[in-house]
């Protein structure tokens, strides 16, 4: 479908880009309020303080109980610190389409002539910032409560890894959200993927410890590259040394995002044909 203005004239590429930016901006600002009750301070406390500390603590205590050396416990703590962003990056983003269904706003969203890429990504963009904040908080707890040393850390590298992993994991959340457009709700799939990264992404033990057939699945998840990169950055690897793994993470994130987008538009088209946006 070609974009036109109110008089029916076909818009130029520049105009389309400007409109897409406006959609992105609107989706970002209004989506922030519409997703979950972010303005409630309790939700912030839960996501940024309680859940990361509890999750890191659970696996750190397990490592201590098993008498692993402190280097192993620190490996686990760092992995869980970065993984703690999943609640925001995967769970909240995955539920965007389900939230639309529950609130009755899905048909209205679907009939807008807005650029789908801008709408799709814009609504999730706030979660990039929140995910980065949660992961940064997780790393602060790792240092302050669980004794992880940042003495050799390359802080520029740490910052880039956190940001890139947040963006890449959002793409993973959007992929599930696209599937949620077709399903009755994405909540169950979102719950599965919220936790499955604990097992598959090298968070608590190296990917090589998984059965061989499962390891390729691990490397399709952007977080797997993120956990590897964050450990390297904390150990002192420079940004240039991180580039190969960051490049792989970015590429993986882009591929996942593209698959999510095509699924979204495909299910949207199917919904339009069948008229079953919210009916099951």
């Amino acid at each position: 479908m070609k974009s036109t203005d109110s008089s029916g004239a076909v818009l130029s590429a520049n105009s389309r880009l400007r409109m897409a930016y406006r959609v992105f901006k609107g989706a970002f600002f209004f989506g922030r309020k519409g997703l979950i009750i972010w303005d409630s301070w309790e939700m912030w406390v839960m996501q940024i303080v309680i859940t990361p500390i509890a999750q890191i603590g659970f696996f750190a205590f397990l490592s201590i109980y098993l008498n692993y050396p402190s280097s192993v416990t620190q490996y686990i703590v760092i992995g869980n610190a970065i993984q703690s962003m999943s609640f925001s990056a995967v769970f909240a983003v995955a539920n965007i389409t389900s939230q639309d269904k529950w609130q009755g706003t899905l048909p209205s969203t679907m009939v807008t002539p807005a650029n789908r890429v801008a709408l799709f990504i814009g609504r999730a963009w706030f979660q990039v910032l929140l995910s980065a904040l949660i992961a940064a908080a997780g790393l602060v707890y790792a240092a302050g409560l669980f004794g992880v040393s940042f003495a050799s850390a390359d802080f520029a590298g740490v910052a880039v890894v956190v940001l890139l992993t947040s963006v890449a994991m959002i793409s993973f959340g959007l992929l599930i959200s696209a599937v949620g457009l077709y399903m009755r709700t994405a909540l169950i799939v979102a719950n599965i993927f919220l936790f499955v990264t604990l097992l598959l992404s090298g968070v608590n033990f190296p990917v090589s410890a998984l059965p061989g057939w499962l390891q390729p699945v691990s490397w399709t998840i952007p977080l797997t590259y993120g956990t590897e990169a964050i450990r390297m950055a904390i150990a002192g690897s420079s940004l240039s040394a991180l580039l190969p793994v960051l490049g792989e993470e970015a590429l993986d994130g882009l591929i996942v995002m593209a698959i999510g987008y095509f699924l979204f538009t495909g299910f949207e088209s199917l919904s339009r044909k069948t008229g079953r946006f919210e009916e099951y």
Partner: protein
Amino acid sequence: MGSLDDLTPGKRTEGLLGHKGQVIKACVVLTAKLFFADPQWIIPSIIAPFIFTLVAFFLFGGQAASGSFLLYLVLGSGLMGMWGTTIYGSSNSIGFDRWNGTMEATLAAPIPLSWIALGRVLFNTFEGVINALFILAIGLVWFQVGFSLVSPGLFLLASVSTFLSLSAFGLLMCTVILLSRKGGFITNSMEIPVYIATGTMFPVSILPLAALPFAFLLAPTWGIEAIRLSALPGYVGLVTNYWTDMAILAVETVAYLALAFVLFKRVEAYAKRNGTLEEY
């Protein structure tokens, strides 16, 4: 409003169970029907315990080859499953009334809300038993755990008592959720901390001293101790023995119930007086 005794005696207000018993039974049956109409909702509360157990299995590594270690893990994950279902069920038993707009009708019923909530929570905890059995079955088959118990009778007694203590705790949680719309915050915040504090995957003795009072105030801590003592040969846990654990479990369960009924009376009166059941 007259008391229930003013009503014309009929089938619904007579019988062996009495008024309150009939309300509990009706709520158990209704909650069961709602669950079996859409049983997929058990998945979210299974996923976290299951993934946490799998991660623990990988972390246990060579030690996992020991049958008693595996049974230790599987029993812990069973308790995690029961706890997850109880806490989410407690939250949802009141939360669904809010979402469905049936809160006023439920509160206007001529029976204290505590009995309605008790019926719902009982089934939710039973759902947790289904959840625990499911996780146990997977554990037994997947990890090929031998299931020879030290004392099957004592194991059954400890399991049923733990089930009742979780129901009582779930009822207590309902009072908090009745008063607040932050049910999601409370349930999400409590899930993993309780995994830690009750010693599901490691003994509470390795926790920091400051956390121990909290752990000892949670009845499931004593429940899982009693379960492990009756199941695992040569299990050394806390300094207490089976019957001491059971006695503490019983005292704390009664305390939860008493506190829940007192709080329900006050919270229900407060909510009705202020008219803030659905409006904030």
